[in-house]
């Protein structure tokens, strides 16, 4: 492979190349060719076999083999079945699915129709968060163009196959990305997960067999059918085929949307594609898998990215959020940030998730505000295990992962907080101390006049003094002093 071209765009093959609002543009790049061939030349079984042979696994997080899911849904007997596209995309910082829908909506529509043909469904539903107005608009335009061409509707390609798609809006709750909660939300019920089995493939929307796939999973389908399972399975690692789209964010130079073959290393992603760490700082950690994932250290930079390696490393693939952290990031505070998110988003059905995460958050808050004690680290680990073991859905089962992985990989930072009252990254405000260096202070009174809480005292032309019990660590004095007389420790 050409060295400066680490990326390979399959799911994003048309994003940035075609006008997403013109169906002919999509067709000019082999759009709807896969659907046409399936309907006129191949049986559903042949098509499912091709998807199975390709090795495609779900890109929504779990990594379940897509062909197998289609086969199970096909075999579930029913008078009515549904194809659902999960476009909830709730991970903080993630925008892979939004970009696909905004840049290439037809690839998802085509794939959903193919899925309908394979499983025996004539109705598709896209569940998308209402906060994605542009994606919704482009999807709507694409749907009406497809209908005008007869690529949706009745008797598509004169094959006798009927299929149409409806859009359903979500209110942007993370838990509604979980497939059972998503289905309940579409049924007009509360967006709460329920126990699996039964899996949606057997009993889903309105109790009918329902095949739920992620946007990016669908976007891969037409390319696989056009170029063949053998081509697709030649890309990637032994158990993870094809590519993965990541939303690269955080302390990295080239923030953006990337698509790399499975097996690419984190180092290649961060340094070659991402252009390295911003402002020449030192890399500390990379977070994958969103609130369900973990923070990896330099030790994992050469790990080839695939589903299994990331799990072995204590994180997970997730849907594709990738947040890079540098030496200035405090890992305890990062764990707390993710927990804050989980707390907001837990549906509240299970006590371990609802109350346990609240307690985890309290302990983390205690540590970051300088009141932590050594035993707190053990408490965090113990409670995390209980939450993992006793929560109903994936949200609760994975919510302690950011805590556990930061303890595993950055225990020294936790220890510095609880034992020495220090935040090595200098992020935890409560542990900071602003002090005036007497020898450098000219007594200009600037800090005294700017301190919002009157924590600074001193006579004109005499060294000033900061009363630590009043100081709120706002840093105003530090910024104001023209003589570098204020230190931060």
């Amino acid at each position: 492979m050409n060295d400066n071209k680490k990326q390979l765009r399959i799911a994003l093959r048309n994003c940035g190349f075609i006008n997403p609002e013109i169906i002919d543009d999509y067709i000019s790049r082999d759009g709807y060719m896969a659907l046409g061939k399936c309907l006129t030349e191949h049986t559903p079984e042949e098509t499912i076999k091709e998807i199975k042979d390709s090795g495609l696994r779900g890109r929504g997080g779990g990594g379940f083999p897509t062909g197998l899911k289609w086969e199970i849904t096909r075999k579930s007997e029913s008078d009515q079945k549904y194809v659902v596209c999960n476009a909830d995309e709730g991970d903080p910082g993630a925008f892979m699915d939004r970009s696909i829908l905004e840049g290439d909506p037809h690839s998802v529509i085509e794939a959903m129709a193919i899925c309908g043909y394979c499983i025996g469904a004539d109705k598709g539903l896209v569940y998308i968060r209402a906060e994605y107005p542009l994606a919704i608009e482009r999807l709507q335009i694409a749907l009406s163009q497809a209908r005008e061409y007869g690529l949706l509707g009745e008797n598509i390609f004169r094959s006798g196959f009927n299929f149409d798609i409806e859009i359903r809006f979500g209110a942007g709750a993370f838990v509604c990305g979980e497939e059972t909660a998503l289905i309940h939300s579409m049924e007009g019920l509360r967006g709460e997960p329920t126990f699996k089995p039964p899996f949606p493939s057997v009993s889903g929307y309105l109790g009918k067999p329902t095949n739920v796939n992620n946007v990016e999973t669908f976007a891969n389908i037409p390319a696989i059918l056009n170029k063949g399972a053998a081509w697709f399975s030649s890309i990637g690692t032994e158990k993870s085929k094809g590519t993965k789209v990541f939303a690269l964010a955080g302390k990295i130079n080239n923030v953006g949307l990337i698509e790399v073959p499975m097996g690419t290393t984190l180092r290649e992603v961060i340094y070659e594609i991402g252009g390295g760490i911003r402002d020449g700082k030192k890399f500390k950690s990379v977070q994958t898998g969103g609130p369900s994932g973990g923070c990896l250290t330099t030790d994992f930079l050469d790990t080839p990215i695939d589903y299994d390696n990331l799990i072995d490393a204590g994180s997970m693939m997730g849907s594709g959020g990738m947040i890079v952290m540098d030496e200035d990031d405090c890992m305890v505070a990062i764990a707390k940030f993710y927990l804050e998110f989980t707390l907001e988003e837990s549906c509240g059905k299970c006590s371990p998730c609802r109350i346990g995460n609240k307690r985890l958050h309290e302990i983390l808050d205690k540590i970051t505000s300088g009141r932590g004690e050594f035993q707190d680290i053990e408490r965090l680990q113990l409670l995390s295990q209980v939450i993992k073991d006793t929560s109903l859905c994936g949200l609760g089962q994975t919510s302690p992962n950011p805590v556990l992985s930061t303890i595993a990989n950055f225990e020294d930072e936790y220890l510095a907080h609880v034992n020495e009252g220090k935040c090595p990254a200098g992020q935890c405000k409560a542990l900071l101390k602003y002090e005036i260096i007497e020898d450098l202070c000219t007594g200009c009174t600037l800090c005294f006049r700017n301190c919002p809480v009157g924590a600074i005292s001193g006579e004109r032309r005499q060294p000033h003094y900061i009363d630590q019990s009043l100081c709120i660590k706002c840093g105003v004095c530090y910024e104001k002093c023209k003589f570098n007389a204020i230190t931060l420790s």
Partner: protein
Amino acid sequence: MTRIKNLADLHKIKEEVQSKNRLRSSLDYPEHLVQIKVGMATCGIASGAKETMKYLNDELEQQAIDAVVTKTGCLGYCYAEPTIEVTLPGKEPVVFGYVDKAKVVEIIDVYIKRGEQVEGIIPLNFQTIDD
């Protein structure tokens, strides 16, 4: 629009669009055009792609340059939005980043009108499925 009934109908549309694009970018074709794509996904729009597109259209029209400006999705260079791709007839497409009004003027004056190099070209860093 007419209904697409079979694969031949699809192929026909595909070839029409492809040949139109080929002609537009061929120097031998009298009606060749400068083709410009503006990245108009949420990331681009948030960085001002709408203003860039409008300004680009106005400038091209005022200067009577034969060009077609279309919107497209995200090329992935979110850090450098707004991004535009310019294809001069007979040349390979070139992607520019951080395209504000000043950059639009520079791209039109220097790259489009005189065919000279302009700073700010983003090297393509991916392969496509056809490579």
